[in-house]
């Protein structure tokens, strides 16, 4: 490294990378941007609604936001495959590591399984509640709880994906991602495991809108995601244009 002067490094850093990988690298933040608009502005699941309200309060939540929930989650049903594409890009960069493909497949599988409770179940629960307003309030209340607990509380599969990502980065000799990103991925595991507490608590710091179980975890996830977006760009730029295609 020390023999290379900056003049020799910069052309590859700016002009490097394959066109198709760059497309996906741009798609990655675009998808998460749309996802953020859907969950924060349209469907109102982030920041989360209160867990400690009565069945009537939960029915009122759906009555108040039914149109945006219907629009947001219907769009998400169509776009959900995009999450798999973003995971595919990370898996592609992991396959360029020196550790072999097994970790990349582990990441892909873990993230895909995690997306079912993490995104899909809340989508189906909230759409069912929003499209059937005349249902028994107790059942609507169940859909509200089930959707929110699934969305925020059952992210265990994601933590396995973060673990294989962290191990792959630490073992990798090709320097695809910096080692510190492995450590940030380990924080993600910790916060996801703490989130399981929200099944026990209806209010307080460990409820699904709690300062520890939710807000601290969101901050860590935002740091993780922001770092990943930057590092994916860097990894794409560092890949030689004429590198042979991966298996």
């Amino acid at each position, binding site marked *: 490294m020390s023999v290379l002067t900056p003049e020799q490094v910069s052309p590859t850093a700016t002009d490097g990378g394959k066109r198709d990988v760059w497309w996906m690298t741009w798609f990655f933040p675009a998808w998460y941007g749309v996802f953020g608009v859907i969950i924060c502005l349209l469907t109102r699941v982030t920041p989360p609604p209160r867990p400690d309200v009565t069945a009537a309060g939960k029915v009122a939540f759906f009555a108040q936001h039914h149109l945006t929930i219907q629009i947001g989650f219907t769009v998400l049903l169509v776009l959900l495959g995009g999450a798999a594409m973003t995971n595919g890009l990370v898996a592609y960069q992991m396959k360029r590591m020196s550790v072999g493909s097994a970790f990349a497949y582990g990441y892909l599988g873990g993230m895909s399984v995690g997306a079912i409770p993490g995104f899909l179940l809340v989508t189906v629960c909230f759409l069912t509640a929003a499209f059937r307003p005349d249902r028994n309030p107790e059942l609507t209340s169940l859909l509200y709880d089930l959707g929110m607990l699934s969305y925020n509380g059952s992210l265990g599969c994601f933590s396995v994906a973060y673990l294989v990502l962290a191990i792959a980065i630490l073992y990798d000799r090709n320097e695809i991602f910096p080692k510190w990103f492995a450590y940030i991925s380990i924080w993600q595991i*910790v916060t996801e495991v703490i989130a399981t*507490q929200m099944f026990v608590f209806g209010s*307080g710091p460990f409820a699904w809108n709690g300062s520890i179980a939710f807000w601290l975890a969101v*901050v860590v996830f935002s740091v993780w995601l922001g770092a990943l977006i930057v590092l994916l760009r860097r990894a794409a730029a560092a890949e030689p244009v004429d590198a042979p295609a991966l298996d």
Partner: protein
Amino acid sequence: MTQTDPATQLESTTLPGDINMWVMVLGDMVIFAGYFVIFMIYRSMNRQEFLHAQQHLNIAIGVTNTVILLTSSWVVALAVQAVRAGEFEKSTRLVLAGGVGGIAFMVLKGYEWASKIAAGHTNSETFYSFYYVITGVHLLHVLIGLIVLGVLVRELRNPAKRRPWMAETGATYWHMVDLLWVIIFALFYVMR
């Protein structure tokens, strides 16, 4: 880190260990600071309840665990000095001794958890829900620390490796585990 020109690597001015580990350590301390602040907020809102629940913690176990971790941290610091001096046999023994301290800490903590749960102090009490989550996350850090020390022992036993910055990196992490415990001990066991 390893490829820096030796002439620029002045002992007094370079950061010991690996910069990536410092990202982990400082970031981790920010996250734990978040836990501590939230704990303090809830404590100030339910002061009597927290003080009452705190009475049931066994301070003798807390003190013992603090002494164990401080000693373990000191032993690992000695191991780093031994690596710098080229005494790899001694250093390996010291790292192993540090690891024994970590295991003893986990055993005592496990006993403490078991006895508290048996006495009915579950996470239905706010104080104990904080206690189990924060000491649980810390226990996970101890476990990761034992893996780190294990990697270090493997490194020191291989004459082709034995890189001082690896020893410094492992020790940096282990000292953080120690520091976090001292704060947890102060907040949960001592503060009245």
